[in-house]
């Protein structure tokens, strides 16, 4: 067993883990943060995407011990003071989900995408979420949701300039 310590959704978490324990299983099984999902076993689907030190990472590709000292945000930590994150809100408004299983990972990827590129083109959005599979939506409403979130932050930015 190995000692591990990381900050998850603002709280410091310390645990003894098997060195082979995947980060996604650490989050789901030991911290009960079951919003992060497992959709494959080859790191294709992106359902397990979380933010590690602000960057989107597939948490099935990382051992828990590799996250030593890291700051992690999962889907449960995205809303603040019960206020949805704008990306969450736009997924809701634009019907960006159906069964909802891929959604947490998709939202985390979208958050990372908009952090890198606040005003992406449609092609950039499609490219930006191409590491996340959705089998329900055909992606169009997801793209709409991310565009909507971008335009909101864009208008917020331009209004704050004024």
């Amino acid at each position, binding site marked *: 067993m190995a000692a591990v310590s990381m900050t998850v959704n603002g709280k410091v978490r310390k645990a003894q883990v098997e060195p082979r324990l995947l980060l996604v299983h650490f989050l789901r099984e030991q911290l009960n943060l079951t919003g992060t999902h497992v*959709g*494959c076993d080859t790191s294709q689907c992106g359902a397990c995407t979380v933010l590690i030190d602000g960057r989107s990472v597939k948490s099935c590709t990382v051992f828990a011990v590799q996250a030593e000292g890291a700051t992690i945000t999962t889907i449960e930590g995205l809303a603040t003071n019960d206020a949805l994150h704008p990306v969450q809100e736009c997924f809701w408004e634009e019907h960006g989900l159906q069964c909802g299983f891929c959604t947490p990972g998709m939202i985390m990827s979208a958050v990372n995408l908009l952090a890198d590129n606040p005003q992406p083109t449609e092609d950039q959005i499609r490219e930006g979420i*191409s590491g996340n599979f959705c*089998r329900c939506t055909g992606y169009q409403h997801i793209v709409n949701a991310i565009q909507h979130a971008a335009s909101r932050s864009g208008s917020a930015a331009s209004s704050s300039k004024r």
Partner: protein
Amino acid sequence: MPTSPVLPKLVGQRVKRREDPRLIQGRATFVDDVKIAGMLHIAFKRSDVAHGRIRSIDTSAAEAMEGVEAVFTGAQIADLLGPMPIATPFPSPAHRAVAVDTVRYVGEPVAVVVASDRYIARDAIDAITVDYETLPAVVDPELAMTGKPTVIHPEFPNNLAVPLVPSGTGVTLDGKVDDTAIDRAFKDADVIITQRMVNHRLVPNSIEARGVVAHYEPGKGSMTIWSSTQNPHILRTMIAAMTGLGQDQVRAIAPEVGGGFGAKINIYGEEYVAAAVSKHLGTAVKWIEDRSEAFLATTHGRDLIGYVELAAQRDGKVLGLKIRLIADVGAYNMLLTAAIPTLAMMMANANYDIPAIRTTLTEVFTNKTSTDAYRGAGRPEASYFIERAMDMLARELKMDPAEVRRKNFIAPNQFPYQTQMGAVYDSGDYEKAMDAALSAADWKGLQAERDAARAEGRLVGLGLSMYVEVCGIGPSSSLPTGGWEHAQVTIERDGRISATTGASPHGQGNETTFAQMLADEFGVPMEHITIHHGDTGIVKQGVGTFGSRSQAVGGTTLLMAGAKVKTKMARFAAEMLEASVADLVFENGTIAVKGAPTSAKKFADVAAFAYVPVPLPEGMEPGLSEEAFFEPTNNTYPFGCHISMLEIDRETGEPTLLKFVAVDDAGNLINPLIVEGQIHGGLAQGIGQAMIEEAVYDESGQLITGSLMDYALPRATDFPRFEVHSTVTPTPVNPLGAKGVGEAGTLGSTPCIVSAAVDALSEFGVTHIDMMLRPEKLWRIIHGGRA
């Protein structure tokens, strides 16, 4: 007098889904999120050969591992569980949840490990060794039909799961065949189109794979089972039957379900094993399917070969159609396996008034994963064969593909239309849908655009296809599970509404659409309504969500239960208002006498009175809770027209979809936003099949597209923006006039894409290309002998 805000009508509006807040915050409960104290974990050892006899299994090393609680071989599981059941009337081979002496496909379970933790269970699986006597395997159904190189089930000679079954013109119900009409059609024809087509095998791939938690409580003698299923009531029935419990002793729960697409209708061996092992050990057990496991262990879709012959006059009028179908059903019959290809026979008329049709169907066992329902289930296959043949006819006659279809449509005044295949189409206006698509896509403009692109040397093509679909599946004569649905509506004491539905959703948004309907019916805010589903402990009865039936059948049932309780509530209100029931209106959270709004009683006050009725009106029982069963008299038959534009790179053969326009007619729409989402999803799966998805087996029976690294599941970058429109032709089959929409997108899209590819490559003289459109295949057509 209560002052209430005016509530807008919600049916027909783009209402945001009520399911979403929990899903976007990661607070929903999927089956892998269910934890029970003391729960153990199951893993399956699976065959790595496609066909073989088990000489021996050594489980000793696994049993010796710390944390391993039990290991079961097939023979030991056979002591706990009977043979796998099926729900179709076709004869089926013996099938065990865990193989006892022979394995017949890669992925077939051969042993079960129960351990304290999932990692240990996996380690233990790897510690089990199985010695197989390898037998020849067969993966090609047309080879398997010859009985060579192997017979998979000795009691089914030549591997014929279903020997040739004829249907259509001149075939009577008792199987007598008269060829006069079909022979005449082909004799009178000016042109005959003949083509072998393959509607290839797909892997459904819901992003949540399957999973089950079984919790038998010995003290109570009852079982609770959570499963990622489309139909918890069918699960309850089957689990009870297989474990020897009564249906009253089993509670089945479909928690949040991460997609199904038909593959979660079937009740699987893993569900029976989990239940039996939990009962045997007296403890809760969990099994969660890995993705690689899902590729092998969850049923596949399609895999139907069609030999299509179309006879027509020179003016484009079709005289006759023959289709010889060969279905590769894989190694065993699952619950509905044998029935799925019959839906392709049933829909052979497609949208057309064809004087003579003859289809035959043969189903064949191979050493592959079983097929079963996959989004569309038989209807996309029929649509593909017929629409491709219509396109070939148009090309042969040098007619516009739209005009060939127009010549053959069933006319609006012919509905209800009795088809040659035994279906009765409820309602339709195919020309209206096609004209709407031609106009939305600007068909003439697209043709000009294509021609201009060709003049520059680009390979650009257009595709057009029609479809007609079977949805809202019922009545009971068409479904072994019963073709009805159940609902209960309760007005609670505080005036809020609890409703239950047997339609168990997995992404369809029924919590929203059903609440929209009840909100309008009772004139109350949608926020005051809760829709319960997916738990047989709460929802008394149900059939489930498949065959695009949840709105048309489940929604109707809910409204019927609502109408019953509304009638009763009106009597209580009439008592309070000293008015006649006929004069009451339910609106804006009140019940009032028509034309006298000042008389209004609050909805909640009438509800409270119904539970403490002093005095109790004569002849009435207290309380407000009513249930309904509804069975439609017929299926519904939605339809539509799809148009696409596709370009193929002359140098690489790579196809790019430039444009996709869909006009779908699903009857009346409850929530157009949700309907659009359903259409988009169906299109994505159909376009995925046409362009990139394919389950490929090698000759030894190994699935070589057995992971998401090898099987091309569509990504966001694979699609252009879909343009989706609708026409509205209500169905007379249910009072909502709603037809169903979940599967529609998979029907029109495959022939539409392939026809566009054929059009793009027309300069090379190609008339048909089998899916999927692998660039290498297209490159070889472009570069001919230079391959």
